[in-house]
């Protein structure tokens, strides 16, 4: 008691909230508190109880409220409630209790707390100990990053060691679409990361974030202040030690509509058009991302694609005067592959995906009806070659506009700290193509270059890219990224409706797990084993803006809320600068 007083508590915490229940045994996992008449505990509240232990001294037990109860003690029949509460004929004591899940004991002497012990609300330093913040701060090294607020308005911390690759990496966010606010939380988390360079240390330097805008247009205004942002939200931000404001450094990219003009309906200015030239298509081996359907492996299409990719690399030559375009010439022709060539008369100059597909077709399905070139087809059956070509031609309409000759319009991820790629308007196959192309680019870039600077990739609808069943080149990249990303410095923030539909390897490697509202059946699945039974039950009821967070440093999940964003998420929310035409 005395040392608690020394540690500057608010007076409320000096008064016990109740006693450790003695009518049933306490354990090292769980105990119950009988609440004092003028006290209360709510879910997620943190409590502390001290137990004198023979030969050891005092052991401090920290716990979190997982359930609360109230009843009339001494009543036997349900109708007794009426006798007690309304008729006033039966005397009964109102008894209120709370179940506490133990999260920590200090020192580590695993004993059940004594019955009848005084239970206090954990506040100040005791609260930080209950949340293991003292372990996240060793000496001058502070790795405790505030990433949300508890119901009582106090910060929740994450051990950044488990995000930046020091001890673990990656974050997985699950929840029902619309109410789980998965993307909102991912963005908020990113803002926390970028706002605290003192905690992030070397990880903060040149940190690059790649975000795909998969649905709607809500990510296209990250750099604009939100006109709905109010003082109340601002206060929450300042509680977290952050200056509320839009993202300071963002570049926006949308697929090319016409030459140099991005196709982006919501936002017109400040968006760059992106696409790949045929040369980049060949060099980056992007053909494989036209075969991202998990069915493709079974049909041997990916095998053919591998052969074709290799052949393209050998055959492709730049064309003099047509930047980004290529011609396909056999390497044994003796042309120097590093120098642009002048196209022969009638030679096919490949300026777009259509040209490329037709060029490939010449090798796989020669006009004379002969069998295709074995070097290109790998001697697969004729039907497989035909299926391959059918798929290629089929992708023209969907992916075609992402490939064209001309000046390079690759996405420049180095331009700003945050790169938002808007693919929501694209067909699903084209979305997969763009995502595959970009994440493999990040992956390739970091290979063998050390962890720093860190690259963070935010990918919604992860189940499309790393599904539980089947194989695809994107899934392959994501699995590798999940497994080795810690050392590569590539961190994945994946979001999905149901974690159960994600490749287990990807999920298992995520050190941080976050969940918003879950479908009732989904919440019961093994993928949410990190939740307490009470958390699972509540996961069905979570309101937008409330999430459950699990991290390796804390043995119990933490419920948190996060503040309203200071950046706009819709065109209507954009707080415009003063109108230059005002007063005219």
């Amino acid at each position, binding site marked *: 008691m005395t040392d608690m007083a020394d540690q500057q508590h608010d007076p409320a915490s000096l008064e016990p909230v109740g006693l450790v229940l003695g009518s049933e045994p306490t354990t090292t996992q769980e105990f119950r508190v009988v609440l004092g008449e003028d006290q209360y505990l709510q879910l997620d509240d943190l409590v502390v109880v001290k137990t004198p232990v023979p030969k050891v001294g005092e052991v401090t037990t920290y716990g979190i409220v997982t359930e609360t109860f109230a009843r009339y003690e*001494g009543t036997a*029949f349900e*109708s007794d409630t009426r*006798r*007690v*509460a*309304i*008729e*006033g*004929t*039966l*005397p*009964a004591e109102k008894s209120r209790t709370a179940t506490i899940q133990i999260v920590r004991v200090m020192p580590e002497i695993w004993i059940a707390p004594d019955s009848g012990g005084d239970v206090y609300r954990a506040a100040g330093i005791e609260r930080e100990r209950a949340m293991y913040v003292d372990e996240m701060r060793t000496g001058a090294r502070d790795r405790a990053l505030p990433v949300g607020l508890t119901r009582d308005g106090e910060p929740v911390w994450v051990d950044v060691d488990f995000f930046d690759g020091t001890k673990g990496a990656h974050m997985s966010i699950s929840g029902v679409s619309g109410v789980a606010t998965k993307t909102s939380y991912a963005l908020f988390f990113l803002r926390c990361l970028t706002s605290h360079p003192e905690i992030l240390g070397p990880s903060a330097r040149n940190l690059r974030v790649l975000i795909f805008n998969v649905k709607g247009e809500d990510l296209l205004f990250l750099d604009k202040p939100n006109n709905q942002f109010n003082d109340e939200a601002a206060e929450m931000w300042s509680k977290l030690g952050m200056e509320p404001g839009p993202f300071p450094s963002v570049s926006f990219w949308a697929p090319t509509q016409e030459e140099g003009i991005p196709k982006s309906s919501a936002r017109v200015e400040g968006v760059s058009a992106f696409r790949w030239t045929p040369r980049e298509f060949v060099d980056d081996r992007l053909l494989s991302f036209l075969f991202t359907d998990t069915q493709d492996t079974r049909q041997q299409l990916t095998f053919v694609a591998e052969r074709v990719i290799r052949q393209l690399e050998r055959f492709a030559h730049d064309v003099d005067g047509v930047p980004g375009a290529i011609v396909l010439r056999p390497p044994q022709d003796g042309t120097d592959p590093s120098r642009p060539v002048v196209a022969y008369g009638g030679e096919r100059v490949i300026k777009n995906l259509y040209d490329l597909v037709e060029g490939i077709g010449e090798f796989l399905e020669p006009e004379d009806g002969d069998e295709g070139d074995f070097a290109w087809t790998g001697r697969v059956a004729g039907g497989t070659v035909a299926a391959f070509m059918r798929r290629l031609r089929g992708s023209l309409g969907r992916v075609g506009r992402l490939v064209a000759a001309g000046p390079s319009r690759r996405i420049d991820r180095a331009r700003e700290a945050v790169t938002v790629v808007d693919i929501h308007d694209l067909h699903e196959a084209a979305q997969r193509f763009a995502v595959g192309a970009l994440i493999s680019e990040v992956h390739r870039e970091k290979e063998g270059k050390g962890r720093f600077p860190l690259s963070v990739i935010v990918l919604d609808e992860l189940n499309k890219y790393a599904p539980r069943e089947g194989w695809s080149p994107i899934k392959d990249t994501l699995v590798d990224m999940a497994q080795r990303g810690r050392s590569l410095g590539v961190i994945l923030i994946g979001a999905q409706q149901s974690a159960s539909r994600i490749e287990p390897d990807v999920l298992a490697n995520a050190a941080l797990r976050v969940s918003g509202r879950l479908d009732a059946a989904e919440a019961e699945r093994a993928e949410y084993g990190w939740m307490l039974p009470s958390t699972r039950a509540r996961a069905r009821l979570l309101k937008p803006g409330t999430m459950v967070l699990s991290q390796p440093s804390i043995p119990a999940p933490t419920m948190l809320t996060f503040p309203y964003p200071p950046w706009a998420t819709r065109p209507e929310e954009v707080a415009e600068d003063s109108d230059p035409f005002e007063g005219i």
Partner: protein
Amino acid sequence: MRIAVQAWSPEYGGEVEMGRLEASVEQVKTDCETSTWAPVAPRYSGGLLDAPVAFVDGTRRIDARLFVSNGRSAPVAGLAGSVGAGSVVCTPPNGEAHGRAEIDELRIQRVLAVGGGTAVALNGAGGLSYRSLPVPGESVEELTYAVHDTMRNLEAQLAQELADQGSLVFVDGPLAVMRPGPQRIVGFIKAHHRRYLEADEEAVLGRLGCGERTPLFSFGEPRPRYSWYVRLCELADGDHDWHGLVRCEAPAALELDDVVSLADVSAILLVRFASLPYWDKRAPQNLVPVAGLERRLRHLLGDRDLVFRMIRDSAARTSEPSAVGT
């Protein structure tokens, strides 16, 4: 031939112990309120019906049977008994406000009743202390009465304190051990072992409807009391005529008009507090607040086995070898 089953659970005896229904030895006056004996429907409509009402009840338990010897003469029998008495104050619902039943007082006493006038106390482990209660006789029955009287005295004391504060008090059992002045204390008796009325008057008992009472009668020297019967429930097919009757007593020191009011009030209130057959094994006479109080009191007497062990332990520790044995 008609068979009627007594409603109480058999382990509690019967509400009417016909076999033991003894002829009254007392002088009973049956014309103090009226000489025409017929069921009375209560007419009272005053403030007592909306005021808080207190119920007093007690409980007792024999914790251990002992022999006490001083090493010189033959050992005498003793009983370690725990008694408790308490009160519930019931505030009736009033308009928007819900009613409340609150336990007001809880008193526990532990006594060591030892025959032959032997005074011996037991200061037990864990704060369990039995004060001495010397009993002149030596039979176990006398010892049991002594423990029982301790409870009755505790109840009486509590009832009188509450009545002094102006409450209307219902106390479990007859007013025999009390010497009440003009206080509003009503004793209520759940089971009927004695006959107070002649056959003609007694016939009225069978005709009482739910919430009706008999006219007043009085008896008792040297502690005169008024008395009346109240029916607490409707009779169903198969019930015997005396089912659901309680007998009430009020101090003779009260004015007759006040006793008439009290009798009316009791007929109205006791029905309100009567228990239901599924709820209590002694329904309807075991009143709901009293049953709740009794449960709490019994709980406070402590765990029977634990108490027994503690008595053994402290007997072993405080005695000369083989002086006290359980």
